[in-house]
């Protein structure tokens, strides 16, 4: 466990930090330090170990909404415990409440991130994300507490660069009193879901902005990449086809669709684009395996673990298995399953990495 960053006592807390174990002792119990943070386009999720040895997760929607600033609105928001900030002489509602209000008012939320990375087009991205991350992570339990945060891999189908995104969040976390370290998003899924397979197999994270893939052998990533298609891609296409707002398409998707058995035109559109996304990712994994160098030779079947908010839709794994059966995959595959806690799997994987340390 890396304890280099945990030498100082945390002022104001009645705790002591053990430098050899990286734990903080409260009144009666030890708490293992280190947190995991999934910085997703659609949601931010933080995970930390608690006194009972369980994991506490906090999830917040990565969105905000401008509303008119007046004393009445401010009072109402405070009474309703809706989080807001006053920014540029206006009120900005943050998180899940922003998404709910947007659907009530018939507006679109503003998104600090786009396609898996900090959005270059959103001028208020940085201050809003700082607020949301501070809210989900809370205060560090020790100065310089390690936070492993998820970053996407380079995309196969768009020209993107993760360096700025990674550096930005390392700095942000440093300002919050943490030590930030980046971890590939799909690699985090391997850590959280493939422990029984000795961390060998394929981890897939279906996020809002991207889908990430990682092929790992004994926890070592052999292949990592992403494609710029995710939940937002599905929402945009469904919105275009149906002639509705994107946030309305998101709501339709999240309210309980079964993509094996769509009931109406809207659900049919959602199912079509889900199949396309899954098929696209599988074809790209297959192509990378066939053309990549230094790929591991899996003699035994390996499992595929799916996670991410976009995989929460009903019938996802069944459709995934359908699409998988259509292609001639180059390595033997055992189980294909979705994580029990698909929305927080990446954050939990980051927590595993933080707890183990370097």
């Amino acid at each position, binding site marked *: 466990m890396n304890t280099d960053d945990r030498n100082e006592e945390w002022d104001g807390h009645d705790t002591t930090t053990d430098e050899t174990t990286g734990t903080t002792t409260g009144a009666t119990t030890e708490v293992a330090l280190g947190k995991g943070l999934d910085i997703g386009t659609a949601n931010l999720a933080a995970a930390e170990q608690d006194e009972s040895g369980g994991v506490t*997760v*906090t999830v917040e929607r990565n969105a905000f909404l401008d509303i008119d600033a007046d004393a009445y609105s401010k009072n109402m928001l405070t009474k309703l415990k809706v989080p*807001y900030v*006053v920014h540029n002489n206006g009120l900005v509602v943050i998180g899940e409440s922003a998404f709910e209000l947007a659907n009530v008012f018939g507006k679109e939320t503003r998104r600090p991130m786009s396609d898996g990375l900090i959005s270059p087009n959103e001028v208020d991205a940085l201050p809003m994300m700082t607020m949301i991350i501070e809210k989900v992570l809370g205060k560090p339990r020790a100065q310089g507490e390690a936070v492993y945060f998820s970053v996407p891999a380079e995309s196969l189908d768009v020209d993107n660069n993760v360096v700025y995104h990674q550096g930005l969040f390392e700095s942000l976390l440093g*300002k919050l009193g943490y030590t930030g370290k980046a971890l590939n998003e799909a690699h985090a899924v391997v850590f959280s879901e493939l422990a029984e397979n000795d961390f060998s197999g394929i981890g897939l994270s279906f996020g809002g902005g991207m889908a990430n893939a990682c092929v790992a052998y004994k*926890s070592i990533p052999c292949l990592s990449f992403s494609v710029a298609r995710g939940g937002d891609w599905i929402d945009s296409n469904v919105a275009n086809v149906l002639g509705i707002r994107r946030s309305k398409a998101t709501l339709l998707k999240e309210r309980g669709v079964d993509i094996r058995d769509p009931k109406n035109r809207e659900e049919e559109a959602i199912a079509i684009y889900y199949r396309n996304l899954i098929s696209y990712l599988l074809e790209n994994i297959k192509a990378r395996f066939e053309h990549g160098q230094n790929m591991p030779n899996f003699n035994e079947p390996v499992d595929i673990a799916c996670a991410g908010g976009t995989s929460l839709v009903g019938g996802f794994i069944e459709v995934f298995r359908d699409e998988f059966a259509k292609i001639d995959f180059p390595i033997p595959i055992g189980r294909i399953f979705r994580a029990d806690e698909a929305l927080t799997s990446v954050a939990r994987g980051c927590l595993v990495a933080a707890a183990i340390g370097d």
Partner: protein
Amino acid sequence: MDSFTDVKEALVARSTVASIDDLKSQGRSKVKVIKAEHIAAMVREAVENAVAGTGMISREEVDMLVERSREEFRDIVAEREQQLTRLRDAVTQLEEIKVERVRLQASLQDVLAERNSLRDELEHSATRIAELEEQLANQTAPAPAPVAAAPSSDMDPSLVMKLMTEVAELKANMSAGTPQPQQAGPGADEGITAAIDKLAGTLNDRLEKFGRKMGISSAVEGQQVNFDALFEKEFDQDSSQKLESNMDSVQAKKKQEGGISANLERLRKLKGGG
């Protein structure tokens, strides 16, 4: 709209425009011209006469027949126009595909040109290596004029052989793209060592230049970029611009999930009992 207008419109829709020059190029110096109105009138008259001449149907039935024919005609015209539109769309798509093909061919030409340029660079590098080898070989031959040499510069034939071997290895390494092997021969002559270093440096320069062209040269890592300045406003405690919010009083929703101790234990075992 009456049948007269329908026929006229149909004639106009089916007709094409040709300039006088086009007609001349086809060898026509004179053409017969007839107005669409005349054709429509002739068609109408012919139909009416034919129908009236049979004496089999009344005037009203004739009018009804004419009306139905007009509708039929209109439908046919609309269908033909749709076909024409689809054809035009297909032609447009074909043009776009052709343009894309030309663009791709141009890209291919660029890539081939780049490849040829790199091939030339490789040949040039090989020529330079040959020149250096020749220079090295010439150093072993007795020179008529005294040449400035490093101290203790006795040209031991075994050292010369060693030097030639090293140059051959360098050449082989450059072809294979592998890093140069470390050489630490005890008793190596300083002058020969300096010559080898100079040769290696020259080859490295050429490799570096070649590598940059191929895009495989490794860049020197710069200092990590510090983004702290971007967050000054958010984290400046004394700033009057600190955002007003109620976030401190709104608790984030937390959820309890299963522990990760099993994952940690497995990972520690994998890493060797950490």
